[in-house]
């Protein structure tokens, strides 16, 4: 059987609002998941987020996840952030 890991997912701005104000979710998942699988899991738990899904960028441990790079695995204790289009400055 697979080892279980925990990943902290952070929801900001529009994503947090669509998730009903939830800013943080703990994902208890199988070891070996990718960042994209984590996002799918979150979208299943918060269907309202799907309207924003195509505009979401992910960040793993404070670094953007390159959408064009090979799938990236998450590790136990990682912090995964859902980044809606930014608007700072």
């Amino acid at each position: 059987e697979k080892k279980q890991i925990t990943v902290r997912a952070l929801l900001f701005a529009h994503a947090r609002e669509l998730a009903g104000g939830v800013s943080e979710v703990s994902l208890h998942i199988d070891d070996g998941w990718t960042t994209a699988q984590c996002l799918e899991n979150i979208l299943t738990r918060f269907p309202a987020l799907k309207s924003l899904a195509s505009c979401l960028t992910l960040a793993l441990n404070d670094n953007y996840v390159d959408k064009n790079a090979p799938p990236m695995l998450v590790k136990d204790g990682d912090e995964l952030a859902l980044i809606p289009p930014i608007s700072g400055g």
Partner: protein
Amino acid sequence: MASADGKVVEEEGVEDDVVEIKEKPLDIMRYMDAVRDSSAGAIATFSGTTRDTFEGQEVLELRYEAYETMAYRELRKICQAARERWELKRMAVAHRTGVVPTGQESVFIAVSSIHRQDALKACQFVIDEIKASVPIWKKEIYNNGESWKQNSEFLTRNTT
């Protein structure tokens, strides 16, 4: 480090760059004095100020929020990238969060250099990069609704 005057997070980056994300009004003169250097001949600054209208609609209020740990990291990376491109003396970059009244600074950048071209170009570079990569969000509140804004600089960079 936390400063004495309330809810302020202040950190010093590489090369003593001042990088701040805070919920209070930005103290422009403090940042200008932080980059002032009697061996420098120029200080260039950029202020992003909040506008009271968007496409003809009155903006009642603006609210900013940041993913702070990552925003600090991105801001410091931007300062470092600017230093690699131009010969700079000192840099200060600050972004305000929370409610920002219209006409006030949401972001302030100050850069000093020996020769003015370096400070001027770096200042432009830093604001362009902030718009493209620093995880901070702005929401505009109108009479009849509200809207999360999107920077075209971010969308361009993140479109495959």
